[in-house]
């Protein structure tokens, strides 16, 4: 009998790109695992439900998914949707592996919630430190997309920069889907910062990179995966050159397993995934590794087992990189500092696991 997983993700609405990547990652992982005989001899099965990027709908869908008593719940990706649904999963005693990155999600003492990537509380301080220490920026412009993702990152980074003594001279919110960044770049130019922190979705990153180049902004650019991902490079062309980013999880990481994953994914879906594709993929392998560690398919014991668990890529290649889960459901993993050089990502630094 198959092990049933339930996925609720942003398959339409504002988060459609995020959710679709996540879903494709999940499907790919399950296909692989099932082809190799499944988990503990049982096949995996997943149902996907669309949250329409709307917390209310997400709640309904998670409710529906939980009513069907899945083994583990996957998703959603939007932090707001995670916030509405996490109490439901906790109440049902079912582990939820999600894509949200907002800092507070794992700090509410929920014992059933797990991340697939860094929370902003762990990635943003690294970014801030890099801007301050390595870029030696006394003044920084911060551009962010005004949704929970962007706002969350911005809040942490601004706080950290402040603590480190770098001054935020321009704090610019932008809209999701914004096409015209001339005014924002004009403001950056006017503020004349030592560095610019860009925290937008991929397409918007590409657009602002082009505009920054057009207006001749020369200050170094720092961001996250969403600034220097392959997709951005494809869309922005040579405007992406020189941009740097902290990469927690990227298909561009200099890791053989990840490269292999990327090829598999691209072969199946005809495009190169962003980090959300990876998150979905990892979520399934987290289920596999945890279950095999328990040695049985036990929904109730799952969360306990995953807390404090370290999964090594050597044992479970699907996990791609060694990873450790703490008591809050946060993860610890290696990460990278990457710069775009002539349309290619070049790893400048490898940041080790914290612990």
């Amino acid at each position: 009998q198959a092990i049933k997983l339930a996925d609720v993700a942003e398959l339409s609405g504002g988060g459609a790109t995020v959710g679709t990547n996540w879903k494709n990652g999940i499907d790919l992982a399950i296909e692989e695992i099932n082809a190799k005989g499944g988990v503990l001899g049982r096949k995996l099965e997943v149902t996907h439900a669309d949250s329409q990027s709307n917390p209310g709908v997400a709640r309904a869908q998670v409710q529906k998914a939980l009513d069907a008593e899945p083994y583990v719940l996957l998703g959603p990706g939007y932090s707001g949707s995670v916030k509405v649904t996490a109490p439901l999963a906790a109440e049902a005693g079912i582990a939820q592996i999600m894509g949200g990155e907002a800092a507070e999600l794992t700090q509410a003492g929920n014992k059933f919630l797990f991340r697939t990537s860094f929370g902003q509380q762990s990635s943003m301080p690294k970014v801030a430190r890099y801007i301050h220490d390595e870029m030696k920026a006394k003044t920084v412009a911060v551009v962010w997309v005004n949704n929970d993702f962007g706002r969350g990152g911005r809040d942490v980074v601004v706080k950290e920069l402040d603590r480190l003594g770098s001054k935020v001279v321009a704090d610019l919110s932008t809209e999701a889907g914004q096409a015209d960044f001339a005014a924002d770049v004009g403001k950056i130019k006017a503020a004349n910062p030592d560095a610019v922190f860009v925290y937008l979705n991929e397409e918007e990153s590409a657009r602002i990179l082009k505009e920054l180049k057009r207006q001749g902004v020369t200050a170094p650019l720092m961001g996250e995966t969403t600034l220097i991902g392959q997709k951005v490079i494809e869309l922005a062309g040579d405007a992406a050159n020189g941009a740097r980013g902290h990469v927690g999880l990227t298909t561009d990481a200099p890791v053989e397993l990840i490269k292999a994953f990327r090829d598999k994914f691209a072969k199946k879906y005809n495009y190169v995934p962003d980090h959300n594709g990876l998150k979905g993929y990892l979520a399934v392998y987290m289920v596999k590794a945890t279950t095999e560690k328990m040695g049985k398919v036990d929904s109730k014991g799952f969360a306990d087992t995953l807390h404090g668990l370290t999964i090594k890529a050597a044992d479970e290649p699907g996990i791609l990189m060694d990873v450790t889960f703490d008591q809050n459901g946060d993860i610890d993993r290696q990460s990278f500092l990457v710069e775009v050089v002539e349309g290619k990502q070049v790893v400048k630094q490898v940041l080790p696991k914290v612990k």
Partner: protein
Amino acid sequence: MSNLFDLLVAGLAAGAIYALVAVGFTLLWQTSQTINFAQGEFVMLPAFLMLAAMHVGAPFWLAIILGILLSMILLGLAFKMLLVDPMMRHGVLPLAIATMALAIGIKEAVKQFFSAEASPFPSIVPTGDISVLGHAVSLQSIGVLVVAILAVFGLTALLNRTSLGHQMQAAAQNPTVARIIGVPVERMILLTFLINAFLVALASLLITPIYLAKFSSGEVLGQAAFIAAIVGGFNQVRGAIAGGLLIGVLDNLAASYVSTQYRAAVPLIFLIVVILFRPQGLLGRAEERTV
């Protein structure tokens, strides 16, 4: 004030895009008294049709021709026959709602059958900037502006100066009487939607290199163009150009001088003010005499 000049240029560039999309809104209103809430999606789709054609190996020029033809068939002919014909008699709302549904349908279809990812799109205007008074102005924007102006002038001439144009307007204002005096109403309406389809295909071709091809890009575009059309004057094609440019500039000024968080509010407040004090829009024609 070089910064202000840059903002103006950037505003005009964005505004030209809005104008080009808004032309369709005003055209449809003037010649069929319909509102197409899927206009943004109509602009988004042809680029994907062209991309699809290139995917199966067509050269760019052929893809463009195929894209335009296909959109005239799908967004012109089929749209008119399947949606407009049964609903037009029942006033503005049912069709407006149907186009909202259509917008969802088109978006979902593109996402499902093409991709949820953004893709780059080749530009037929050479990329790069030219320098105007020492400020960089992108050739693509100039191309969009030129086409928008041409479209507005061409359509205005057609509608106001030719018998065909009068017949198109007559068919919209009073279809029964138009029929009685021999205006081929059906053909006029079809013509309206074919012109619109051609325009959106053209707009798609010019705008997508700037905006990127993405299933959701119609939303932002459609809304901005909608606002532009109203501000400029919904019942006159020429309103599109004025409204588009104005909204583009205003948006950029707002982003610079007001807060970026409330940037989107400024054009909207402007819209409300315009409607309250000059409901027909800046270049629109007043609807006169009701008693």
